[in-house]
């Protein structure tokens, strides 16, 4: 229990540090945004008015406290670039709202593919006795790992979209209208994200199993009269999967990053595209919230992986 308390404190501390960093990075360093919103020809009165409206005339610490309490209350601020109409500015929450599920689902589907495909593949590879099969696996993983996800996305679009016509490039159905169709549209982008990671994970599992096969307890199992199959599945696999859990946790961040890029390739309306466009238009309130959000997701997943690890490894959980 003490451990979890410790972990949660660390989690909160990290979030705090990231929020301060984000605040400093996007609200202090860039300087005054008012001129960039209004342009150089605005009247001084209008500038003062907007500055007060945005709270920019306050000292930094007060601005941070106000901002973070607003964020915690659910008020995520307003975009500098988008506006609802002439007089009303666009709230960030509204801007992000229906884009977030797209990205999260994309990451989740990718992770699902990685787990479902790489574990049997890794076991198969570890079991393969023939040198030809081993070499084949080896070459395939090396090549797959070298393909960047956006190039893979383009290849997938060309092959499955343009030649085989399995999906319409650039097409999309909202998850609100047709969830199954929505997942269908996520499939190919998810494959583009997952493929290199599948290769990495399978290779990692295979190495982990080969290492475990050399341990003393495997010899003990054989000395009791266990069959090869029994040694492999009952004894080795569980021990070999433990480092794989950590490994999967580590690549979560890369999956999220991958989905940001791949959204761009497939034209999916997720937060990744919003983030990229907000960065190029220097729409800092949006960037800031998105960064916080993605960080939160990644850190939270790490937290879950850590707990999972403690559940499956008796050497840690009992301490």
């Amino acid at each position, binding site marked *: 229990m003490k451990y979890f308390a410790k972990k949660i404190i660390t989690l909160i501390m990290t979030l705090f540090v990231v929020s301060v960093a984000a605040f400093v990075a996007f609200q202090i360093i860039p300087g005054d945004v008012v001129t960039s919103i209004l342009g150089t020809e605005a009247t001084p009165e209008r500038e003062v008015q907007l500055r007060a409206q945005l709270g920019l005339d306050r000292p930094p610490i007060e601005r941070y406290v106000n901002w973070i309490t607003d964020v915690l209350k659910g008020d995520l601020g307003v975009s500098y670039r988008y506006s609802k109409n002439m007089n009303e500015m666009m709230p960030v929450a509204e801007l992000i709202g229906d884009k977030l599920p797209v990205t999260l689902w994309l990451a989740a589907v990718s992770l699902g593919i990685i787990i479902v495909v790489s574990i049997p593949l890794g076991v198969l590879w570890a079991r393969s006795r023939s040198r030809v099969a081993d070499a084949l696996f080896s070459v395939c993983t090396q090549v797959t790992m070298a393909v960047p996800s956006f190039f893979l996305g383009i290849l997938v679009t060309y092959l499955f979209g343009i030649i085989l016509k399995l999906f319409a490039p650039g097409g999309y159905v909202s998850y609100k209208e047709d969830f199954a169709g929505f997942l269908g549209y996520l499939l190919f982008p998810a494959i583009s994200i997952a493929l290199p990671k599948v290769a990495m994970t399978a290779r990692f599992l295979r190495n982990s199993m080969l290492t475990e096969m050399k341990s003393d307890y495997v010899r003990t199992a054989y000395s*009791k*009269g266990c069959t090869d199959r029994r040694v492999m599945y009952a004894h080795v696999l569980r021990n070999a999967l433990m480092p794989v859990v950590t490994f999967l946790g580590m690549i979560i961040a890369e999956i999220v990053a991958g989905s940001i890029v791949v959204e761009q390739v497939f034209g999916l309306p997720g937060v990744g595209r919003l983030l990229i466009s907000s960065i190029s238009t220097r729409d800092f309130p949006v960037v800031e919230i998105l960064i916080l959000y993605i960080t939160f997701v990644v850190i939270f997943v790490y937290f879950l992986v850590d707990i999972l690890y403690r559940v499956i490894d008796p*050497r840690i959980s009992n301490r």
Partner: protein
Amino acid sequence: MIRIEDLTVAFGETEAVKHVNLELKPGEILGVVGESGSGKSVTALTLMGLISEEARITTGRILFDDVVLAEAGRPKDKALYRKYQGDRMSMIFQEPMTSLNPTWKVGRQVEETLRLHRDLSKEERRRQVLDAFTAVGLRDVEKVYGSYPHELSGGMRQRVMIAMAVILHPGLIVADEPTTALDVTIQNQIIELLRKINSEQKNTMLFITHDLNLARRICQRIAVMKDGRVVETGPTEEIFETPREAYTRRLIQAVPSRIKKTRKTENAVSPDKADNILEVRDLNVYYREGGNSLFAGKRKHCVVENATFDIKVGEILGLVGESGCGKTSLSKAILRMNKNIQGSIVCREPYPQMIFQDPYSSLNPVKTVGWLLKEPLRALGRLDPSREMTEADMEAAAYDMLRKVGMEESYFHRRPSQLSGGQRQRISIGQALITRPRLVIADEPVSALDVTMQAQIMELMLELQEELKLSYLFISHDINVIYRMSDRIMVMQRGRIVEIGDTEGVFRNPGQEYTKLLLKES
């Protein structure tokens, strides 16, 4: 009856076991004794059908009650072996920690043997496992049944391993160094247990060890192995009384069985009248729990309590005790490597040096022998300008030291990876002594070495001690090694010094129960 006939086992081109013949009579304990690399473990693993797949049997065969288990030129019959493994033959390994599956409860691991060979109900299997646990002397068996290996002590784990091996009353038990990883007191209990099982279950036992004394205590017959061959076989007493082979004689002599060191006292300083080189008074040594992290507890853990002793100039003080008794913590405190101490340490040698246990980790692997020998002189020159030397002088001193530790000059440009364990330990000693410190702490300097090498290194350390008029604090868990080396001995138990005195006196007339126990073990 188990027969190994003309067995040769090869890994690629190299033969690890060469034309070995061994016969085990029903109910006997046969010891196979040899240094590391002698092929004793390979023989045992081949017999058990556990040898790795790169190994091939190139000549001979293995018979178990007239059934041919393995034969040259025949692929390994895994199905046949599986019928024997666990049921009619079983094995006890050296490392009980790594030999048990870390993620399985130990009860289930023992139960697996039953499940593989007998058709029993779940309750019956559990009952038999608990009975086996009781039989090997485990207490609180229900709790042990549900424990993971890391929750048990080393001795308990080895008992679990033994329970696993004997639960089906196999005809053959192979024990590969079953006590090497354990403390002396536990060692003794495990030996007794094996002897008891042998007399109750009447199994044949193949007992593999590097330790002749241990073999003498438990085996009826002994086979001595060297370089993959059996050089001599015979009843235990015969081997010890009238060894036929020169190698066996060397092995027996190398065992430090209470041989008193021979001193040319004319050259040595008489310790009685000499000054103290080290004075330790009321020393407490602490360790902070949980390391240096932010979350680390502030609680200190006392590992050495109230230590008071002296070392005189030219004296060897032997420090003996089991692992975890605080020997190493004490030496680190003296060397100021741990500053968490209370009490006083007065050391009249400004730069005392240390010789470490593991010759593989105590030399920097990227440097040459010559560089390693010169580095202490360079460092000393920087600390103490009066002792600064020219490059040529350092080079000469390094060559001189290389000769002193009994190595040829051609080794000067080699790297540690090109040396054997014994050679590394020689360089390690040379590195410690090249600055001519008057006090050297030797922490288990021979424990990682084979017996013949042990004897040579001890001899070298004694020679250099007289020549350079050194004082040693000589640490070991091996009471025989201590006896051979020390003028006085100091016994430690759980962080306290329980006895200190003249070597002969303590050995003849130990004042403490614990010392008696330690002496009895060997």
